[in-house]
């Protein structure tokens, strides 16, 4: 099956729930107010709403390596999570064909009391892999993580750098069709950071579609053949990587 990502006029409203809107007391008060018609407060169901994505239309085909560029809070991660199917569009439609593998919040699925080895298994079981598939990949992942003997120790004893190594190493088991990556190279020491970059490059080569959000413009320029620039939840510019990077730098 050919991979394809099509978004048509997709918008996403992101409700922010504060203590007020999560409590039922305000609901009841609200109903009371409506009945007695004393005040006409119009507290919406969802409290504050932030429009995280506005009217996004895009189409990626097999072979596209797409860079997503934009400042913090411009909607890069939200867009990736929408493509992944974690968020669903409020309006418009999203049509994603092909096997997905996400490296977004890679640190999920770890249990504090389980050992490194067990956590590799657990997080990949959550991703839908079978135990025997994981067993076959285990030596490679263990070797890649470089944690050696520590893999037999409980996760709670790991330092944050070691946790990041394990998180990254366990995420590489997926064989990618559509590969979604959010920037995460800031963790780990220099050695590991170089190693993980190399591994990701290899995975990117094998993927049919790559969508990659990052601030590392030189790296994006090297890898990607397409780019979009996000600003306030909208695509402000799209085209080939060089043009978009120039546009972004001049913002």
């Amino acid at each position, binding site marked *: 099956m050919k991979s394809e990502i099509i978004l048509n006029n997709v918008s996403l409203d*992101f*409700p922010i*729930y504060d203590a007020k809107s*999560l*409590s*039922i*007391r305000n*609901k009841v008060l609200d109903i009371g107010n409506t009945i007695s018609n004393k005040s006409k407060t119009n507290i919406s169901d*969802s409290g504050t709403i932030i429009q995280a994505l506005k009217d996004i239309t895009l189409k990626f085909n097999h072979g596209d390596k797409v860079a997503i560029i934009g400042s913090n809070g411009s909607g890069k991660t939200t867009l990736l999570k929408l493509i*992944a*199917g*974690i*968020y*669903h569009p409020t309006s418009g439609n999203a049509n994603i064909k092909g096997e*997905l593998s*996400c490296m*977004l*919040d*890679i*640190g*999920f*699925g770890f*249990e504090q*009391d*389980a050992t490194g080895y*067990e956590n590799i298994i*657990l997080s990949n*079981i*959550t*991703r*839908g892999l*079978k*135990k025997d598939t994981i067993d076959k990949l285990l030596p490679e992942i263990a070797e890649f993580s470089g944690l050696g003997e520590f893999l037999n120790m409980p996760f709670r004893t790991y330092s944050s750098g070691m946790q990041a190594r394990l998180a990254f190493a366990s995420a590489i088991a997926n064989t990618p069709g559509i590969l979604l990556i959010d920037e995460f190279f800031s963790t780990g020491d220099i050695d590991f950071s170089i190693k993980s970059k190399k591994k990701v490059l290899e995975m990117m080569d094998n993927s049919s579609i790559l969508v990659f959000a990052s601030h590392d413009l030189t790296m994006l320029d090297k890898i990607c053949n397409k780019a979009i620039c996000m600003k306030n939840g909208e695509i402000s510019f799209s085209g080939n990587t060089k043009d978009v990077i120039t546009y972004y730098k001049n913002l």
Partner: protein
Amino acid sequence: MNFFINNIALKDLIYTIKNYYSWSYLSYFDLKLKYRRTFLGPWWVVLGIAISATAMCFLWSTIFNLYWKSYLTYLFSGFIIWMWISQLVIDAPEVFTASASKYIKAYPNPPIFYVFRKCFFSLLLFLHHIPLIIIVCLLVNHRINLSVLYSLPIGLLIIFINSILFSTNIGMISARYRDFDPLIKSLMPPMLLLSPVLWKPEMLGDFASLIYLNPFTYFIGIVRNDVIGLGFDLYIWIGAMLLTFFQLIVFLSLYSAKSKRIVFWV
């Protein structure tokens, strides 16, 4: 017919059931982790129940003026089933907001996947308490109905299905409105006294039929009655079926309408 074809709840349900391997493995592992670093492991819970139920048996059989042998099996079985069901109810409001929340925000498994993980874990926990009931029955030479061979699995399945539906429904409501969590937690202790766990329905005299107002009666009944040799009670089975059906309807409409919002609530 359209209601069923494009129903998100059904789609997610079927997807999750097909992926039984993942959640059952995770539940099994949760169980393993629970007992890690303990010497007696799972036997701690069994021992704990045995201790408290035995103590309660002597206290309440004296208060109620009952022969302890016949009361022991009733109390043990009721108490063990109650522990399972009440824990499910207490955990239900947190099924999406607790540990599942970071999964829901990081990976596109359907939210109900984590409900299966939680409920199957509870079922596994209950399963290794069943021998305790049987041991107690044998100790006091109690008669066990042979029909238990088919009624027990059916009863467990009905409770498991209900736990999935209930946890999803309540989990969604209380993820959105956080008041439900403390509300439900404060309702459960009095529910123990209102359910036929410590006392027998016939002790209520003229009011015995009032027990049918309590939904817990049905779920305790379908598992307990055959195990401890009480007669077949058609009302209890019909009641359990009706409650399942009711929950299913709520689940199909609520989950279909709002499951995509869960990620914003947790």
